[in-house]
C-alpha cells in the first residue's frame, strides 16, 4: 500500500533541494531570455509568410509555446543528476534506511522532479501566456493538467536512465545527446509539416511533440498542423505511465548493489 503522505515527503525534499541550484536556475532563465528576446524574434522575420499562416498566424507565438515545453523537459530531467549526486555522497544508502518504501521513493521523486520544474517554469509560462493569450480557459486547463503528467513522465524517464546506466559520465553524455535530438526532433521549434519525412516519422511519436502541440491547442493557437488534442493527451498519459512504471521497477531492482561510477 502506497502512503501518499510519504510520497509527498519525498517530493517536498526534492523541491527543497532544487532551490539550492540557484545558479542553474539563473542559467536556464538566461537561456530562455536569449531564445525569446533574440533568436525567436529574428527567426520570426526569417520565415516565409506562408509558414506564418500555417502555424496559426504568428511563428513567434508558436515558438514561444514550444520553448516552454523545452524548458519543462530540460528542468524535469535534472532529477537524474540529483540521483548521481546522492550516490556520490552516499545519500542513497541513507534514503534506503528511512521508513519509505522503494515505490514511494521513486513515485515521490517523479512527482517532486516534475513539480519543481513546473514551479520553476511558471513565471516564464505566465509571460508566454501574456504574449499569446488564452482564448478558451477550459481547453487551457486540459492542456495544463496534461503538462503536469508530462513533467512527471520526464522525471520518471530521467530516473529510469540514471538507475539503468549508473555512470555519471555516461548519463551526462547520453542526456546531452538525447537533449539535442529529442528537442530538435519534435515540434517544439517547428511544425511537423516542414520536416522531411524521415524526421517527421520520429517527431510524431515524440512526447515533446504531444506536449508542445497540446499546450498550443490549450492557448488557442489555431493551426491545422498540430497533433489532435485527444492523441496528444493519450500520448502524454502513456509516456507518464510507462516511465513511472519503469522507474519504479528499475529503481527497486537496481538501486542496491553494483557500483555507481
Amino acid at each position, binding site marked *: 500500500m502506497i502512503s501518499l503522505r510519504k510520497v509527498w515527503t519525498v517530493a517536498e525534499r526534492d523541491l527543497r533541494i532544487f532551490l539550492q541550484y540557484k545558479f542553474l536556475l539563473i542559467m536556464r532563465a*538566461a537561456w530562455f531570455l536569449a*531564445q525569446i528576446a533574440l*533568436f525567436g524574434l*529574428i527567426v520570426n522575420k*526569417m520565415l516565409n509568410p506562408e509558414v506564418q499562416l500555417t502555424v496559426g498566424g504568428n511563428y513567434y507565438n508558436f515558438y514561444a509555446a514550444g520553448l516552454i515545453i523545452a524548458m519543462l523537459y530540460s528542468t524535469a530531467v535534472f532529477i537524474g543528476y540529483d540521483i548521481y549526486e546522492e550516490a556520490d555522497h552516499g545519500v542513497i544508502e541513507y534514503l534506503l534506511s528511512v521508513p519509505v518504501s522503494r515505490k514511494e521513493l521513486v513515485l515521490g521523486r517523479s512527482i517532486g522532479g516534475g513539480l519543481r520544474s513546473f514551479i520553476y517554469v511558471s513565471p516564464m509560462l505566465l509571460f508566454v501566456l501574456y504574449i499569446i493569450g488564452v482564448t478558451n480557459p477550459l481547453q487551457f486547463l486540459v492542456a495544463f493538467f496534461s503538462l503536469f503528467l508530462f513533467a512527471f513522465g520526464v522525471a520518471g524517464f530521467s530516473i529510469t536512465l540514471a538507475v539503468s546506466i549508473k555512470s555519471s559520465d555516461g548519463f*551526462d553524455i547520453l542526456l*546531452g*545527446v538525447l537533449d539535442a535530438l529529442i528537442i*530538435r526532433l519534435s515540434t517544439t521549434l*517547428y511544425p511537423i509539416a516542414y520536416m522531411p519525412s524521415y524526421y517527421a516519422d520520429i517527431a510524431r511519436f515524440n512526447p515533446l511533440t504531444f506536449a508542445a502541440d497540446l499546450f498550443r491547442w490549450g492557448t488557442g493557437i489555431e493551426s491545422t498542423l498540430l497533433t489532435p488534442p485527444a492523441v496528444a493527451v493519450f500520448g502524454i498519459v502513456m509516456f507518464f505511465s510507462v516511465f513511472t512504471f519503469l522507474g519504479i521497477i528499475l529503481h527497486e531492482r537496481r538501486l542496491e548493489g553494483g557500483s555507481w561510477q
Partner: protein
Amino acid sequence: MAVKAIMHVIERDFRYFFRYKWWIAGMISMNLADLLIMAVVYTGMVTREITQQYVSYFVFFAPGLTITALFAAAFMIGREVNMEVRREISHYMLSLPIKRWELAIGRVLAGGFRGLVYMTPLLITTLTITYLFANIVPSALHLFVIIIALLFISIGTSGLSISLAISTMSFEKYITARSVVYYVLFFCSTVFYPIDLVRNALPQTLVVVAEYNPLSCATDMSRSFLLGYPPFTFFMLLDIAIFGLIFALVAILAYMKVTQK
C-alpha cells in the same frame, strides 16, 4: 627555451582534452544535430531572399556550425583553469621549472589550438557542403585566411574563458557567466541568421553588438569565401584580430596575477 616550455604546457592541455573523448563525441553529435536536423527543417521554412543569396538555409548555416564548434571547444579550457585555481593545482604547476608567463601563454594558446583541432572535421564538413551545394571550392589563400581567422577567434575565446574562469573562485558563478556570454555572443551574431534580419528585428544597441561581434565577422568571412556572400571586408579580419589579441593579453595578465596570490 621559452618555446619549449610553452610547448610542454600546450602538450599537457592537449592530453587532458583527449581524456574527454565521450564529451567530445557528445558535443560533435549536438553540433551535427543543429546542422542535420534544425538547419534542414528551417531550410523549408525561410524566405526566398535567403534561398536566392545563399542557396538554402542549410548551406547558409554550415559555416556557422564551424564557429559554434570552435567556440564551445575553446571555451572548455576555462572550466579546467577554474578547477585548478579552486583546488590549488596551480600551486603545483608553479613548482615546475616553467616561468609564470610561459605557463600563462601556454594555457591560452592550448585552449586556442584545442578549439582549432576540434573544429577541423566540422570545417571539412562545411567545405564538403559548400562544394556539393554551391559548387564553390575556396582558393588556397582564402582557405589559409579562414584558418588563420579561426585560430584568432579560438585564441580569443580561450582568453575570454580563462579571464572569466579566474575572475571568480565559484564554479557555479563561472558556468553562469559562461552561459550568459555564450548566449549573447551566439544569438546576437550572424551565426544563425543574416545581419539584415538582425537589423530588422533588434534594437540598435544589439545590432551594433551583432555587427562588431567577432563571431559574426568570422562567420561572414567564411561565408564570403565559401558562398560568395556577404562581401569580404578587411574590417572582418581587423575585428577578429583585435578580439583575439585583447582577450589573449587580458587572460595572460590575469592568469599571471592569480597565480601570484
